[in-house]
């Protein structure tokens, strides 16, 4: 364990990446250059720390080394050599061993990584890399793509920022709501990528969800007055509390109704509920807090039967107003049916069915089939379930639907 410099450098990088890169961007005014310099400093650390020992303040060491590299580069091509030389003189004195506040700089970095000029894919990769301190290899592993593909993605993202001359500052107040919304959706996208994985090793995907949680906890530290940041954290804590029960010993998905609730992580449920309470204390519930509240209703129920479905129906109605989407309506239909009103649920689903966007999706027929079974219309219900099975690309889901159709009581 000790003397294991490579792992120590990696651990230091995980802790310090955001602060080091943020400080360097302020210094060189360019994300691409700042990140390259930081990487070079990491290479130096790998070379020097085994001989010289690990510095007292490794983050400050990395920053100072990277700054010196920047100055050397400028010196080689700049007439301002004397001024930079003077700056270089003082560099060693500016390395202090205090824990400085990092909020503002890290927040600026988050806004840069989630900048609107970037594609969603680039925002995700840059956020995990610059703010989360993950290496390209780690990112490639988490997203199940070859390392060169991920490298390309990162390079393209940084070039886009440089080309757009993105200013490294906190956006003006009128832009805040939109910018924060995009930051939250990037983090939630990372989470759902891990939580609702349709491919890959499920354990590996849990790592990705864990990274999103870590980012979510950071956001709450950076945006303590932002109700939806707490709402998002609550949602992620509550959803990941079910991880242990969502997959059986053979790796097959286990539906909510069949999950062993004793295997939910109740410590995590408590943390999620505490976050939701903090969100509620700040503002009325919006998109993430409402979804967290729905997850909370499931989390506190002893079983599917004793779940307060009526309360969940109300929460879906509110969510439909705040963030309307056909998927929310479909979930509301499920809740209405579970609340004992399958007739009303069928009306909601049939109204949705006129929307052509559902044509290729197995979701709607699988929900409609369940509602019909509940209404005692077994033949029609089975036909819907078989249609859903036909539309499902995921082999395990297909088998589950066929099984359900075959075993529905006549």
């Amino acid at each position, binding site marked *: 364990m000790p003397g294991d410099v490579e*792992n120590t450098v*990696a651990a230091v990088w*995980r802790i310090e990446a955001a602060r080091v890169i943020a400080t360097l961007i302020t210094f060189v005014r360019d994300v691409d250059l700042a990140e390259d310099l930081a990487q070079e400093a990491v290479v130096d650390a790998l070379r020097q720390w085994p001989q010289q020992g690990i510095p007292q303040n490794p983050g400050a060491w990395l920053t100072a080394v990277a700054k010196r590299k920047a100055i050397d580069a400028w010196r080689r091509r700049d007439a301002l050599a004397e001024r930079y030389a003077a700056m270089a003189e003082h560099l060693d004195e500016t390395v202090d061993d205090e824990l400085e506040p*990092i909020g503002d700089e*890290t927040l600026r970095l988050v806004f840069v990584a989630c900048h609107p000029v970037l594609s969603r894919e680039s925002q995700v990769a840059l956020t995990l890399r610059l703010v989360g301190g993950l290496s390209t290899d780690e990112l490639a592993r988490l997203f199940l793509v070859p390392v060169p593909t991920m490298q390309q993605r990162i390079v393209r993202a940084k070039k886009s920022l440089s080309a757009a001359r993105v200013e490294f500052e906190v956006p003006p107040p009128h832009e805040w709501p939109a910018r924060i919304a995009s930051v939250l959706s990037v983090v939630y996208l990372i989470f759902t990528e891990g939580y609702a994985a349709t491919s890959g090793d499920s354990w590996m995907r849990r790592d990705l969800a864990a990274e999103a949680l870590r980012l979510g906890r*950071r956001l709450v*530290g950076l945006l303590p007055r932002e109700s939806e940041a707490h709402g998002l954290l609550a949602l992620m804590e509550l959803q990941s509390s079910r991880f242990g029960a969502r997959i059986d010993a053979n790796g097959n998905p286990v539906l909510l109704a069949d999950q062993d609730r004793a295997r939910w992580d*109740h410590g995590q449920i*408590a943390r999620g*509920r505490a976050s939701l309470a903090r969100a509620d204390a700040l503002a009325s519930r919006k998109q993430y807090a409402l979804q967290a509240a729905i997850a909370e209703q499931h989390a506190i129920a002893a079983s599917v039967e004793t779940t307060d479905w009526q309360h969940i129906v109300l929460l879906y109605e509110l969510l439909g107003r705040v963030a309307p989407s056909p998927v929310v309506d479909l979930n509301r239909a499920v809740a209405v049916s579970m609340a004992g009103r399958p007739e009303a649920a069928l009306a909601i689903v049939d109204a949705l069915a006129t929307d052509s966007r559902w044509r290729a999706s197995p979701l709607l027929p699988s929900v409609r089939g369940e509602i019909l079974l509940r209404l005692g219309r077994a033949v029609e219900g089975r036909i819907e379930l078989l249609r859903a099975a036909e539309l499902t690309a995921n082999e395990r889901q297909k088998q589950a639907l066929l099984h359900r159709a075959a075993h529905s009581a006549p």
Partner: protein
Amino acid sequence: MPKYMLIMRSTAAAVEASKNLDFEEIINAMGAYNESLMQAGVMVGGEGLADEPGVVVDFSTDDRIVTDGPYGETHELFNGFWMLEVSSQHEAVEWAKRCPLGPGSKLEIRRVTDESDFADFSDNEFIQKEEGWREEIAKKADNR
């Protein structure tokens, strides 16, 4: 992501010495450290233990021997812990190194067991009950 417990232990001498320091300064230094853990999104819990004598129950003989604490030959006091959720043991060590503690204090870093450590006993009734207990404890904490 695994969880690690940072276990804080100090010699009685170190605890005595700390009484000569400005208590508010200690609170500020520790507060800044805790804030950095929160801002990095790695802290999931922690508690400090009161600086007052405890009691030790010793299992050396059939009748339990009850004495005044602390236990152990070295007279090290266990006086608090943090729970961190981090990417690796190395990361936990790096965080521990940043803790504002002085000579005579130590942090021990131990991985917290999770479900996978008891996979072979998943049908044991107590292992199954345990999550229910956690839920009860969490509810009590909610109502505090």
